Structure formats: C-alpha cells, structure tokens
C-alpha cells in the first residue's frame, strides 16, 4: 500500500483513500472509501473520481504494454522529480 500525506486539495484525504482502495491491484468494490467521498463531496464527485481512476488503469497498461517513451516535452518535469526518462527499464 502506498504511503504519504494527503494532498493539500479539497477532499484530498478522501481522494487518496478511494484511489488506493480501487487502484491497487485488481478491480474490487471500494465500498467504504467510496462512501467517505460521497459523504464529503457528493455522489457526482465520487462518480467522476472513479471514472478518472479507471481511465488511468487503462492508460498505464496501454503505455507500459507498448513500451511507450516519455514524451520529450515532459522530460524537464521528470528530471525535476528525480529520474532520467531515458534510463527507465524497458
């Protein structure tokens, strides 16, 4: 399970909890974490968040599955985050 502080965003703690519950491993019902976000931000926000999480489950697999390179225009951000995108294992 990932660790770290919740982001300084509205409903940050609830967004982290839902992402980690739904997005770690296999698709499974994140009932408790979904309800926390519904209670905090409303059902529309929770549904929207689930859509974003689901689509990045797709994009992560598509990009890793084809051996996609990091787009050159994002290289400066990668360097800032501490890794060289030209030396990722692939």
């Amino acid at each position, binding site marked *: 399970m*990932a660790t770290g502080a919740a*982001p300084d*965003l*509205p*409903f*940050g703690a609830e*967004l*982290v909890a*839902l*992402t*980690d519950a*739904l*997005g*770690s*491993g*296999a*698709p*499974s*019902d*994140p*009932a408790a974490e*979904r309800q926390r976000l*519904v209670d905090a931000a*409303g*059902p*529309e*926000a*929770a*549904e*929207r*968040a*689930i*859509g*974003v*999480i*689901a*689509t*990045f*489950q*797709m*994009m*992560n*697999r*598509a*990009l*890793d*599955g*084809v*051996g*996609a*390179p*990091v*787009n050159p225009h994002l290289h400066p951000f*990668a360097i800032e985050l501490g*890794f060289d*995108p030209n030396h*990722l*294992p*692939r």
Partner: protein
Amino acid sequence: MLVDAVLPPDPQRLAALTRAWDQLTAPGVELTATERHQVIKDARAAWAGASQPNPASGVAGEAAHWVAIDAEGLRAEVVADFEARGLDRWRYLEIVGIVSRLANVDFYVAGLGATMLALPAVDHTPPTGRRDPAAVISNMWVPTVGRSFAPHVLDALPAEGEALRDIHEPMYVNFGSIGDGHLVDVLTKSQIEFLASRSSYLNECFY
C-alpha cells in the same frame, strides 16, 4: 448495464462504457471475437488471483495475464520472446488494447459497486484485418503511426486507437482541455490530475 450500481453512472460515461464493451467483445482487427473473449477471461482470471497465465491460452494468454497485472514489468525482450514463440507484434498490440480498455471498464464498474459485465454471445464475423498501412516499429515495441505518444499508441490498429480515445475522453477530460489547469466540473483539474498521478504511481507507470 450497471443496473445494480451503488453509485449511478454519469449518462455520458455510461454511454462510453457501453460502446467500449460492445467493441471489446466484438470481432477485432487481428483477433476473432472468440479470441478476444478469451483475452478478457484470461485478464480477469489474473485479476482474480491466478498466479500464472492460463496454459490453454498459449502465448496470447501470457500476454493478457501480464498486461493485466504487471504491465510495468514488461520489457522489450519479453515482447520479443512472445514474438519468437508465435505472437506477432500486431496481435500483441491488439491484446494490449483489449486488456487496457477492459481495465477501464472493470475498474469503473467495480468502483461504482456494480456487478462485472458478462460476456455476450460470440459474433462469428471474421476480424477486419484493417491496419494503418503507414504503421512501422519506430519508438515502441509495436507498430505505430509515426513517433507516437499517448493517446495514439494503439493507432496502428485504427479501430483500437479510436476505441481507446472514445472512452478516455468522457472518463478523463476532453483532449482540448488537458492543458487547462483552470478546468472545473464536479472536480477541479488539480483533483483530476492528482487522481491520475496517484493511479500511475500505484501502477509504477512513469509515462
């Protein structure tokens, strides 16, 4: 579809999900509907806890299994080994597309607390065979049209690329708004990008 969801789907996302499921379970470019259904079964088996690929599905089953649960662990030599054992790059690309979009469908359905979608009857129409004639292997392990980046990585098989974008936009943001940091719908762009980056972090995806 999703009639038992705890949280009701947005109508646009439900429509995109329905189109994605219809496309996933229909005959493809390289694969028959029977073969695509098997890819779906093998990916779901991996998610359900199968530690090894289904031996009855051969190399295609290995690809489906590892794309489902360990895409970040794939390497150029693994895909080359698949090819050496009979899974060519075009069929491999279609499997990546199927498992990826299936992930969008199944994670969304699970997230809403609904029952997983059941496979329909098999359509025995032959695969289309429609490849982009300009596609070659350049900056990836699979054929691409030019030096391709997301969300065009499947475009050597045009129907697969179009299907990816067709679900990607309603689930994430319209492509014209990706760079708009001030976008707000029911979430802010900062919240949306946090969800995206956290998901990628969990999957160890750097792209």
